């Protein structure tokens, strides 16, 4: 299956952070790409949600929806900025 946009993970992201995160900008730990999470690559369906950097493919973030909450990890993000346009 070809990847879709990080935007499709908006629901899981919102459930995890309690706010919209698709417009938030993340900094990729591998290549320094600074982009909205909506533009990340989302492969699936999978056992959880995995967002990859569109530029270099690095795994940015994972989320697992479990009963009662979400288990998240951000192994490939060195910064996440929710200000409009990521403060640019």
């Amino acid at each position, binding site marked *: *299956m*070809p*990847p*879709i*946009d990080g*935007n*499709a993970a*908006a*629901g899981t992201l*919102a*459930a995890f952070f*309690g*706010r*919209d995160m*698709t*417009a938030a900008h993340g900094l990729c730990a591998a290549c320094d790409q600074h982009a*909205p*999470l*909506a*533009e990340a690559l989302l492969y699936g369906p999978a056992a959880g949600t995995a967002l990859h950097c569109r530029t270099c493919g690095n795994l940015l973030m994972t989320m697992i929806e479990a009963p009662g909450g979400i288990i998240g990890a951000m192994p490939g993000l060195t910064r996440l900025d929710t200000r*409009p346009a990521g403060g640019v």
Partner: protein
Amino acid sequence: MTATPPQPRVNWQAATITGTDAENARTRTLQLQVPGWPGHQAGQHVDVRLTAENGYQATRAYSLAGAPGEDPALTVVRAEGGEVSPYLVDVIQTGDQVELRGPIGGYFVWKPGPRRRPVLLLAGGSGVVPLRAMLRHRARLGDDTPMRLLYSVRSPEQVIYRRELAGQADRVSLLYTRTTPPGWPRPPARLDHTALAGQAWPPEQAPLAYVCGPTTFVEHAAGLLTDLGYTPADVRTERYG
């Protein structure tokens, strides 16, 4: 400073089907009633979760078809052999319930901006749904942002919102890829550079583009826009898979 958008609903909520409208042979619009619906922005979607009697669950994303201020509605196209869409198109009835999470998404959304940047909407198949919400939003507001929809669809039978779109012929162009209505000026063809260049706002006008539909369509159309000189950051995409 703009007001903070309403915070997304992050918990699953019961939604009741209050009405259904057939758009074409494989497409149905579902009207929903959601207690305490907070309103949404044009382009947002919801996650829909279905639970079978044995507890089995399936979740899919569906765009909100109506304009902000209208009741939540979804327009679903049947994917043959799919798990969720055939149920929503053929089986679910008024009075039945699903669960929703949303409205969600703050990226693939449009609202009039102070600069009235022209907006190009590029739809492939069911990708027309959130773009229709943007057109309706503009119309309901009486807003004068230049906006144009280019809707790529296989055949006349597969057009969604046919009557509504026909009423806005000045800002909507249909592009048939397999079969056309009789006497149609353009033979069936995939969206290409020429067709796009003839419709798209020139890059000098600082246009925004929203591209939505099947992944292959979105990649192709976004590539053509970049070739035309559109700034990648101003081309927002939503791949349906």
